[in-house]
């Protein structure tokens, strides 16, 4: 990760951009995790 930031704006643009992508990934990741976590709840209810 050799990034050269000349001004604060460069830094903010880069880091916020990365953070926004990660936040999107977080939403999808947590959704997937929730589905995995509760994946067998219905089976248990039926039992």
């Amino acid at each position, binding site marked *: 990760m050799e990034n050269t930031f000349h001004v604060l704006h460069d830094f903010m643009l880069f880091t916020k951009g990365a*953070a926004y992508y*990660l936040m999107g990934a*977080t939403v999808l*990741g*947590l959704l997937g*995790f929730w589905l*995995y*976590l509760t994946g*067998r709840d219905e089976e248990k209810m039926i*039992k």
Partner: protein
Amino acid sequence: MSHENPAVKKTWFTPFNMVVGFILLVGAVITILRFTKGLGAVTNLDDNNPWGIWISFDLLCGVALAAGGYTTSAACYVFGLKRYHSAVRPAILTAFLGYALVVFALHYDVGRPWRLPYPFFVQSGPTSVLFEVGLCVFLYLNVLFLEWSPSALEWLGYKKLRNVIVKLTLGLTIFGVILSTMHQSSLGALYLIAPSKLHPLWYSSYLPVFFFVSSIAAGLSMVIFEGTLSHRYMHHKMDETYLSEHDGVTLGFAKAASLVLAGYFFIKVVGLALDNNWHYLLTGYGLWYLVELLGFVALPAFLYAMSVREQNLKLVRWGAVLTVLGIVLNRFNVSQVAFNWHLPSAARYFPSWMEVAISIFVVTVGLVIFRFITTNMPIFYEHPEFKEHEPVELTEHELKPHPQSF
């Protein structure tokens, strides 16, 4: 509950009592040394490292691991999950003792115990984060005392006073959640003042959020961990309700802890991105950071999720152990390992054996009091004269026996 056979003669010289007695004796001697000769006589603290393991372990870990009180009471009384009711009293007791010992241990660091109320009543510094932490801990300790007191009052037979305090339960729970939210996060905020001293991988402007979120996982895991130990050593004190609800509590808390840990993992990664600290991951500190993040956050989150899916109680307990260790590791990393990381190794802090002995002494004192209270007071069972709670009907899968044991 079993009743003891009066024919069996009791002896005080059990292995447990011998070990505990030795620890208490050593602790008492060091306590006298500390309060007569000062910090220098018993600690390796210096101007570079004024906060040692008494802060890292006794205070930071103690407060985080005592979070089971507010998480359990909030689940039961605020969110209405009555199936966790039997876990409330043990959790509140653990939290109360945890906070009481935090304050007890703080005396060793601060000294001059009679001056402890000064920051609140004589020379308050309301612009300090430490003041906020102190005030919250002071108030929350009182809240926990009141929340715990019904079991003591039932034991002593003070019915009227007990009934008055029980009526305050919801208010106390809400106040407790507010206070916990404030001081759990503020403990992280303490380190915001030292961006140049704390390694960038652990320093973040989101430290208060990290501390608060991780405390929820710590509290839930401690309830599971404490429940496991109590099951093994205090089983004879548990009533039908407690025993029938125990597996449901364990699996329910595991599910919650799993989700909280997953959220904690993601916000830690977003925290890395916001400060653009990726390049540090390839250093020695980076590897240590990855051990903490992957081994003690991601792994227990996954173990918990797997155990909930498989209804595997053994796996839940391993998840709880890893989470508790992970929280201890995190607090040590923030306050010791990654703190003053620029200093040459000769100037770094390493605790003296007497500091370690006092920490063990404090935990032992807690253990002895916990044992006394759970043996004598209605913690794992409902007092016959004050039965309010009927066991919640469990589904068939919850009633199914689980072959795995820890």
